[in-house]
């Protein structure tokens, strides 16, 4: 079985937000919402202080509480372990936002454009039918990271191994200048992600919730 996930090396992350910007552009995430964001905190006491950056996005849990909480059954986990929201089914109840222990699901309350004058960018001006179903967001629905499923899906259709090149990886992965992000099949022991998890100290966030996230952090 294939189970795609991310491994993020916190020792390498420099907090540049390239992943945040790439995600915004790739998925046309509207201003105010973030499918990908970076938390930061300080460790230690002056003068021995260290700044730690923790990139956050949907953890694509094996037991997603958002999926269980959704009264409209709009959230599903596909055969590759990616948790996705169906915008056609979503009724904007926001139960998923309340249930997610990671705070990574956002609600689109009104349509906003990336241009500050309210004008639509060429991509935003595209009719919904011309876009990938995962980019047919509309006001009144919840949105979150899709692990760039549109890219993975395309790679699979073309017979490529997801994660093998720029276009078949989630947008946040290849743009990282520090090479802190890794994408691959967690169930394949020969994949880079599995090897990293096995060889380094890898943690999952909020394990006590039993969500079993598919995003690992190397510390």
């Amino acid at each position, binding site marked *: 079985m294939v189970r795609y996930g991310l491994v993020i090396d916190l020792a390498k992350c420099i907090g540049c937000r390239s992943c945040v910007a790439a995600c915004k552009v790739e998925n046309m995430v509207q201003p105010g919402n*973030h499918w990908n964001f970076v938390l930061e905190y300080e460790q230690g006491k002056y003068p021995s202080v260290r700044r730690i950056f923790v990139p956050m996005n949907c953890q694509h849990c094996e037991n997603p*509480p958002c999926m269980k909480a959704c*009264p409209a059954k709009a959230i599903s986990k596909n055969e590759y372990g990616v948790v996705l929201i169906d915008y056609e089914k979503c009724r904007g109840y926001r139960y998923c936002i309340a249930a997610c222990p990671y705070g990574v699901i956002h609600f689109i309350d009104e349509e906003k454009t990336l241009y500050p004058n309210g004008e639509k960018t060429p991509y935003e001006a595209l009719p919904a039918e011309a876009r990938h179903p995962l980019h047919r967001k509309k006001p009144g629905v919840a949105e979150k990271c899709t692990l760039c499923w549109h890219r993975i899906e395309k790679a699979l259709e073309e017979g490529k191994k997801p994660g093998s090149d720029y276009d078949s990886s989630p947008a946040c992965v290849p743009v990282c200048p520090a090479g802190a992000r890794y994408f691959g099949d967690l169930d394949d022991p020969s994949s880079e992600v599995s090897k990293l998890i096995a060889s380094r100290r890898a943690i999952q966030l909020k394990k*006590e919730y039993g969500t079993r996230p598919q995003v690992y952090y190397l510390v």
Partner: protein
Amino acid sequence: MRFKFAALLAIAMLLLFAACAQKQETEEVVREVEKEVPVNLWETAEKIRSGEIDVGEEYGMELGKRWHNIHAEVLGLKCSYCHISGYADDFLYQRRYKLPVRDAPGVVDRAICLGCHKQNGPARELYMNAGVEGAVNP
């Protein structure tokens, strides 16, 4: 050999201790809710599920819809029970001094939800029990 066995035993005991601590913590949360709420949680949850207690048809987070009808009206939870003033010292989750999400109407620590929405808890199961081996990070 003896050292290895001792180390394994120590790790197993640590994991068991962590799982017990977690269980105790969630039980404490349920006890706290029970103290706060003058109703039997299990009985009330069952009545909500069966429709005996009317919590409305309309789903949604707004006041007057099911979510707040259940938690605030039926269970009688005060606002401050869920909407806490700030996060605990939990840096890996959220910045303590700045909300990265604009959708949160005040800080809500999901540990409060975990008390009842855990596996085999009184409310609808949202979170699984991590189990002995999964409760803590290595």
